[in-house]
Every structure is written in C-alpha cells, then in structure tokens.
C-alpha cells in the first residue's frame, strides 16, 4: 500500500509458487508506524497469517524477505535485510539477518518485502525487475554450489552490451536443496545463516531470487540526513570498537578476550578456555591470512575478512565459525578452519549449527552412546563429512537433523547444546550468565544477538561481574529491545556498539570505568524504570544516532524512548506468535551442562542460575509465570487492538 513516509517503497509483494500468482500484500502506514520493517514487519505478517498448526515444510508456511526503512538510505551499515519463517530446526519463528546488497536491490525493485509461499512443481528461480516478476525454470541451476549459482545467474542477467544487469541475489546451495535442517541462504559472500531458512527455500523448490530496478529510496529530510550521516560516519570511525577493533581484527578479534574471560566454548562447551587459542586467534588471522577488509554497502566498519587459501581469495571466518570449528572440536589448525568456512558457505550450511552438531556427535562417540567414528581433535575427512551432510549421505543424513533430534535419539541431552532446537553461539555462558539468560529466552533459539548480547558488559567491552544474576534480567530486556529495533530499521547491530561511550572502552583501568563495572549490576531498578516507561526518554541521546537518522529518513517522530518501545513491541510480537506454536517458560531452557555442571571447581557460581534470572526477566518484561505476555501488555503495546 502506498506510503506517506520516507524510506519505504510502499509495496509488499506476495508470490505463490504453487500457482505462480503474484499479488500485493496490504501493509498500511499504521502498521509501518507500529511494526517498522525488517524482522518486526515479518513477524507481523506471520502473526496475521499463521495460527500455530503450520509446519516449516508446508504450503501454509511463509518465507518473508523484508527490508527496513533505512535499508539503502545511505545511513551507516544499512544494507541489511531479514528472512523470517517457521524454522525447521525449532518449529517456531526464526529471523535470519544478512548484509551484502540484496536488501538495497529489493528496494530498487520497488519492494519493502517479498512474501513467498507454496511450492513450485519443478526447481525455479525468480527474477524481479521493477514491477516485472518472472518465475524461471532452474533445472540447470539445481545442484550447483552457492558461488556457481550466483555466477550462472549473472550469465542469465547479462545484457546485449555484455554487461551484467545490476542486481542483488539470494540463493541456496546443495544443503538447502536437500533440506538439511540448518541450511542457510547465501547472498554474494554474506549469509543468512541461522534457523534453517535455506531448507524452507529448498522445500519450496526455489533455488534463487534476483532483484533489481531503478526506483529510488525516498528520504524525508534529505539535507538533514546527509549532514547527520556524515557526523554519524565520523563518530563510528572514531569509536574504539567500530573504528578500530572491528575493522582491524574483525569479529575474530574476540577469541583472545573470550579466552581470558573463560567464555571460549571449548570441547562442546565443557570448558571455557583452550590451551591452543593463540593458534586460532583473530590476531594470527590478521597477521598471517587477512588479505583485505571488506564491508557491506555503506558500511564504515568493514568487519569482513578476505583470506587467501591455495591462491584463491575467499571470505574469512567470523568469530563463531572460528571458535566452534576450532576450540569447540579441539582443532588448532586455523588454515583448516579457513577452508571449512568456505566449503560450508559453498554447500549452504550454517557454520554454527553444523559445528555444534558435529561436536555433539564427537562427545556422544567419546561417551560411547553413539559409535560414529568422530573424535575431538581428529579433523581428517572433515570436508567429506560436510559434503555428506549437505547431500544427506550416510552419517551425514543423521547429522543433517541437528543436535536436538540426535540427542533425542541417542541420548546425551545435557551436552546437546541448543535452545528450542537451535544450536548456541560461540560464547560459553557459565562465565557470562546474562548471555545464558539471553540464549534461553531468545525467540529464535540459542542466539547471542536475539538474546541481548550481554557479553559486551560481562567481559568483552565492560567488565561487570560475569557470574552475578543481579541486574542481568533488566539489562537483557533493554538490550534485546534496542537490538530488535536496530534490526527492524535495516541497520547492522554493530552500529549499536558505539552506544558505549568511548572513554569507557578506551580506559578500562580508569576509576570511572571501574565504578561503572561495579555499579551497573545494581542499577536494575533504574533500567527497570526505562524498560517500563521508555516514553520518559522523549529526547535523542548524543551517543545514539539511530533515532535522529530514523526521523530524517522516514519523517516519523522517533525519540529514544519510542525507539525502545518499538523494539519491545517487536520482541513481544515474536513471543506471542511463538506462544501459538507452544512456547512458554518450559521451552526457555539451557542444556544441563550449563546450568548443573560448574565450569570452575573453585567458583561454585560458575554456572548459569537460570531459574533466578528467568524470574527477574519475566517480571521485567511484564510476562506471567508461564513466561508469556499478558493480555494487558499486548494491548498496551498495540499488538492486540483495544
């Protein structure tokens, strides 16, 4: 539906792959005001169309690719797009966020979002060029790896003058085609990795989508936005995290701090530190292998690495991959991880879930409950193993199901490291208990970002007490809501790190930083007031440029408090949708290892006090004892109408 706001293209397109019919999906300005875009817009569409009986692999499920109003607006790191659907791994909502340029090109084609449903009779790919939508046969693409697919698509989009028409692409690899439950969707070198979105696309018999066009993203107050963007870029470039650490070391730079803080997932999360961590560190990656830094469109941070392996330049691994395929399986061969990372992207497998599932299988083998031949430290034949998973051959067919289903079959649930079926990220939460809470309550399963990323306070960035539960419930809620909204607007979450004033990051030994570290856990009641009454913050914060940027692009009023409230609405909306699929407090659990086993024998507090944390968190959120939003809260947030 047409819009009066800037940043939006005013159209959501729905394609039914069963019938080939395309239609416009109505999404009003009122809905834009409340549900903004990206993952929250997608959650609203799912909320309005699903009743809780739908399965991931069914004609009723929807695969929604959505952008935010800031996507393609020129704001820093604003090329993101989101993919939401019912996850085959969890059976609940998943939202997978991706950089690159597809979001920008989807908007150039005049679309805010694309809804895919149904199932094509034969393999297909979709071409969108402005208002023209064509569904093509993809028999010749089926079976190709992700880079081959994208190259082949470029050939199909080659113009008579020999140049390739400007376009953004998403595609699946062989893993998605074979519906490996944790397969991903690839866009250039970037990946929408989590929750098995690639498997849903594979089930739909859809190999790829290409989008492009000539539409412009309208900015409500262009001159003000240009000036604000320049200031914002300068701020990010000067900040120690977004201007120094992330550009120079990438996310891999966290390996060493995680080791020091004992939160480096090691041997399937049995330990929080790894003797050979230096051999898989971000410093070594930067010194020996990094060829050039890369960034998404309009990103000043440029956190992506490009490494050279066997004379070929390929994408370097992110922190999660490095840790889970390194210390997670006791592998100290960095070069091997670089190769595996590339191979997993080519096959279209989520590196996090894949590595965790293999680590589970190794431990199950070690304990003798599932004799499968996989051993920690023994990394020969790993490339073949990935291929077996992607093509579901032999043991690969079992591993393709993820650690939850395997632990239900073979036992060892206490060391199957997943939440709601989705495997955990690389942070060992017994020394970051706030993140432990975040993992447990996250709407999409074991995710550090959807979980609020409290590790940035618990040793990575600031240094509050890592094992106390004080204040963590309220802080988790605030961070989750902020990150929810940043994602909804189409920006990268890394821009939020500049929220922490530079002096605190630059001077960790200064008295004021130490004071903040000591006091922060006991500020729960102050954070609670912000969480309960965010509207009192009816101003813009000097360290948080997002709110003004949003106003200049869209023309909507968005003070800091309203920004937080919109994030809260998005988080509760996903939770309410998940309630229909059976989520409640009983599903917000961590593997037994993390809540029962003490990580450090000298420190009895080194496990996640999940019960206490959940109690405070539910109370902070205004949820009932079952961990569900109350009717009153849903009405107050306008998720349900009065």
């Amino acid at each position, binding site marked *: 539906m047409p819009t009066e706001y800037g940043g939006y293209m005013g159209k959501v397109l729905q394609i039914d792959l069963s019938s080939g019919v395309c239609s416009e999906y109505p999404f009003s300005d009122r809905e834009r005001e409340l549900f903004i875009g990206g993952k929250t817009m997608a959650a609203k569409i799912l909320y309005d169309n699903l009743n809780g009986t739908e399965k991931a692999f069914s004609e009723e499920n929807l695969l929604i690719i959505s952008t935010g109003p800031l996507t393609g607006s020129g704001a820093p790191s604003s090329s993101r797009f989101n993919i939401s659907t019912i996850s085959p791994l969890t059976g609940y909502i998943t939202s997978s966020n991706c950089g690159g340029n597809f979001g920008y090109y989807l908007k150039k084609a005049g679309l805010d979002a694309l809804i895919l449903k149904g199932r094509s009779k034969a393999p297909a790919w979709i071409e969108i060029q402005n208002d023209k939508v064509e569904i093509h046969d993809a028999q010749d693409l089926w079976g190709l790896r992700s880079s081959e697919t994208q190259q082949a698509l470029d050939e199909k989009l080659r113009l008579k003058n020999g140049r390739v028409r400007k376009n953004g692409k998403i595609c699946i690899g062989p893993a998605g085609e074979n519906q490996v439950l944790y397969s991903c969707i690839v866009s250039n070198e970037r990946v929408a990795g989590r929750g098995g979105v690639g498997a849903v696309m594979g089930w739909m018999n859809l190999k790829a989508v290409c989008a492009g066009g000539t539409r412009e993203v309208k900015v409500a107050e262009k001159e003000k936005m240009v000036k604000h963007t320049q200031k914002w870029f300068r701020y990010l470039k000067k900040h120690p*995290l977004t201007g120094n650490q992330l550009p120079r070391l990438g996310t891999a730079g966290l390996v060493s701090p995680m080791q020091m803080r004992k939160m480096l997932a090691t041997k399937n999360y049995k330990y929080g530190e790894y003797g050979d961590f230096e051999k898989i560190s971000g410093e070594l990656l930067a010194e020996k292998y990094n060829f050039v830094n890369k960034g998404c469109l309009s990103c000043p941070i440029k956190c992506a690495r490009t490494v050279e392996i066997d004379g070929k330049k390929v994408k370097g691994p992110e922190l999660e991959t490095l840790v889970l395929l390194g210390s997670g399986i006791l592998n100290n061969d960095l070069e091997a991880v670089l190769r595996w990372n590339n191979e997993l992207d080519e096959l279209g497998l989520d590196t996090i879930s894949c590595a965790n599932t293999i680590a589970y299988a190794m431990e199950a083998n070690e304990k003798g409950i599932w004799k499968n031949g996989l051993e920690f430290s023994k990394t020969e034949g790993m490339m073949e193993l990935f291929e077996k998973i992607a093509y579901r051959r032999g043991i690969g067919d079992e591993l393709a199901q993820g650690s939850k289903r395997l632990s239900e079959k073979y036992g060892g649930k206490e060391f199957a490291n997943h939440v709601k079926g989705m495997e955990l990220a690389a942070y060992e939460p017994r020394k970051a208990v706030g993140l432990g809470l975040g993992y447990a309550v996250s709407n999409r399963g074991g995710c550090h970002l959807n979980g609020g990323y409290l590790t940035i306070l618990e040793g990575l960035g600031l240094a509050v007490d890592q094992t106390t539960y004080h204040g963590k419930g309220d802080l988790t809620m605030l961070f989750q809501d902020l990150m929810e909204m940043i994602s909804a607007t189409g920006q990268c979450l890394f821009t939020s790190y500049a929220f922490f004033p530079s002096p605190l990051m630059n001077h960790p030994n200064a008295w004021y930083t130490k004071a903040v570290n000591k006091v922060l856990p006991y500020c729960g009641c102050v954070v609670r007031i912000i969480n309960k009454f965010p509207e009192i913050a009816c101003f813009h914060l000097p360290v948080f440029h997002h709110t003004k940027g949003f106003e200049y692009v869209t023309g909507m009023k968005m003070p800091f408090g309203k920004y937080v409230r919109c994030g809260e609405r998005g988080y509760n909306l996903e939770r309410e949708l998940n309630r229909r699929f059976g989520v409640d407090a009983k599903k917000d659990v961590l593997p037994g290892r993390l809540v029962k086993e003490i990580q450090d024998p000298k420190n009895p507090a080194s496990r996640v006090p999940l019960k206490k944390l959940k109690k405070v968190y539910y109370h902070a959120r205004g949820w009932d004892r079952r961990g569900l939003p109350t009717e009153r809260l849903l009405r107050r947030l306008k998720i349900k109408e009065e």
Partner: protein
Amino acid sequence: MVRVKIFGVARLKAGVPSFESDAETLQELWKTVPGLTRKEAKDLLAFVDGKAVGKKYRFQDGDEVVLMSPAGGG
C-alpha cells in the same frame, strides 16, 4: 623475568606478539611495552594466570603476563 604476551589491536601496534621484561610490577611493565607509550600501555587489561590483576600486582619470576586491548562485540 616475566614473559609478556600482547593481544588485541595493541599487538598490531606493538608489532610483536610477545616480549620478555624484568619489571616487577604492572606499573613498571607499562614503560617497557615495545611500540606503545606508557599512557597507551596503561589502558591495556592485564592478566596473570588467567586472572585480571591491578597496577600494584607484584609479578613472580617466570609469570606469563597477558596484556590486552579492550575488546568489543561480534
């Protein structure tokens, strides 16, 4: 004599992954970090045997000290 390892962006500036020092306290060690001024070294986190230590901590002979820049998110 202590062995000092450097991590984070400070290591890229120092140009060496590790060095040896005969400093007895962290305060003394700050003056000896290659490539970094005392002021810059003062802003590094210090760990001995995996435990964070303060500026007055006295090193034992043979200690392995880790100096690290504050990190961020990933």
